[in-house]
């Protein structure tokens, strides 16, 4: 199943950005709705304990600093993932200093999803992705997830993680080869 990538803003990025700078709620909500699933998926694939809360923290920072951004939609996407990547690094350091959270014994029953089939498929896909990403090198995982989830180019990924373009390419190749080998060894059907 190939998912068609589409423009998050439908060619209206400049108008949305200008409205968001004035504090228009519709523009802010549109920015959040267009990019927050990818950011939350990045955090989820990285194994963050509370990806939704960290995603909200990222977008608070993004929306507060809209006046500082200058560029197009692709640049804005790269800028958002740059902030998300740095928040992820902060979260890793923070979690290293704190004890792991203990889940509540009596968890509330989640509401039944509207589309149970889609929800089950997403849950299985998340488990498989996390199982694979846990066996990758952190740098390879970062590059592959940024390229897939963020839809970033090699140069943009290099700018996000602070490495050279050649290093990003090398990490990408090694990650690709590692995933292929792991899938062949485990025989896990995707």
């Amino acid at each position, binding site marked *: 199943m190939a998912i068609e990538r589409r423009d998050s803003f439908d060619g209206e990025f400049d108008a949305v950005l200008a409205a968001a700078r004035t504090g228009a709620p519709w523009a802010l909500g549109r920015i959040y709705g267009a990019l927050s699933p990818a950011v939350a998926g990045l955090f989820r694939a990285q194994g963050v304990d509370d990806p939704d809360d960290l995603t909200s923290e990222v977008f608070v920072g993004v929306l507060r600093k809209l006046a500082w951004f200058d560029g197009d939609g692709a640049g804005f996407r790269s800028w958002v993932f740059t902030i998300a990547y740095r928040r992820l690094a902060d979260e890793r350091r923070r979690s290293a200093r704190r004890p792991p959270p203990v889940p509540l014994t009596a968890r509330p029953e989640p509401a039944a999803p509207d589309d149970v089939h889609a929800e089950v498929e997403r849950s299985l896909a998340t488990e498989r992705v996390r199982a694979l990403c846990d066996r990758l090198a952190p740098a390879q995982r970062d590059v592959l997830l940024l390229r897939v989830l963020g839809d970033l180019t090699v140069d943009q990924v290099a700018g996000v993680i602070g490495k050279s373009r050649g290093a990003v390419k090398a990490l990408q190749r090694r990650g690709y080869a590692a*995933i292929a080998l792991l899938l062949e060894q485990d025989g896990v059907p995707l």
Partner: protein
Amino acid sequence: MTPRDDRFPDMPPSVQFDAAIEQALRGDALGDDVATFGRFVDDVRVMADRPPPPPSPALAAVLAGSVVPHESASTAVPRLTRTRSLLHARLTPPTSRRSRPALIRLRVAAVPIAGKAAVLLAVATAATAGAAAGVLPEPATHFVRRAIEVVTPFELPGDDARAGHGAQRVDHPSAAGIDPDATAMPPAASRPAAIAADAGDAHDPGVEANADAQPEPNPADDASGWAESYPEPDTSAWPTTPDRPTSSPPQSKGPKKAAPPDAGLPTEPGPKTGHVPPGHASPGSPRPGGPGSGGDAPLFDPDPSTGRVGQPAGKRRPARPEPSGGPSSNPARERPHDGPTRGAGPGPGSNKEAPTSGPPPAAGHGPSAEGGRDHGQCGQSRAGAPGPSDCAPRAPHDRGRGPGGDTGPAGAL
């Protein structure tokens, strides 16, 4: 152990990898070789194909537009204060809760140890340099000198050495800014007999006797052995003054030991041109080192009268104050030309006439030949009865001084 990233020895060409990756990311139709990676990409995108997560209250406030989404409208995430160096912190106004001394202490505490050490080293270097150059005030110089002498094995030139140096500079006529010619000729009354003999009356028996006189060891002087090793030089070869009168008043010629300290002319040049320690010679007293009076002064004073051969001049202790009362309180300094009668007997007083008319003193003993040594040590002149003041006890370091406590030109021997 194989590293984690080196598990794939046979890497395909990078172009092939890059093309397959880009093809999978675009979602194009994938071949069998990259089908596994394509499925991974699809699975990741399915994972991310979710509705937006529920925003946090802070984000919800921002999204609702109730909070201006600008940097100044900080709502949820408080901005961390930037930790700057305390050295660059601005001084808080007086209304601040933190007092100024506390802030200064904080700044000092914020300086690293290396910085503190550098500051201390710089201060110590500056203080040492200042003390050595003498630009610091005297108390500060003294303090620094003491500190250096305590913590280091070195000894800086002290006050006594400095004073001695000053005396030496004053001794030198040229150094003192005095015309040597103007001061070279002392008054006839204070002119030593030996010079007078060289100038005009070389056959004066008194002069010859004085010139040939050997310093006799004094029982109280432990420098007698030195005196034997260093005989008195022949005064015939000493420089003379051309127009020296030969017939001077007896009372003016006699007391060579009573030559004025500021006579300006070294009357008895000799080998003992050591450094005159402070207190042993007045600033104006001529040095017995020849006409230059100290220009070639050796580092160690071989003055036999001191009884401490080889001791650096700068290390001598200052002279003890002279006993007050009596002529021994340096009458020569006060009455240099008057030929002070220092005693009733023929001792010093009779020697005054020895160079010209009087009989020579016994073996040159007495102030005329040995200067103040006799009087400086025991005060008993063997040539005659000593003056009452000459019997005053003296400190060992004062033995080389004349009756008045000064090392007179003749007494330097």
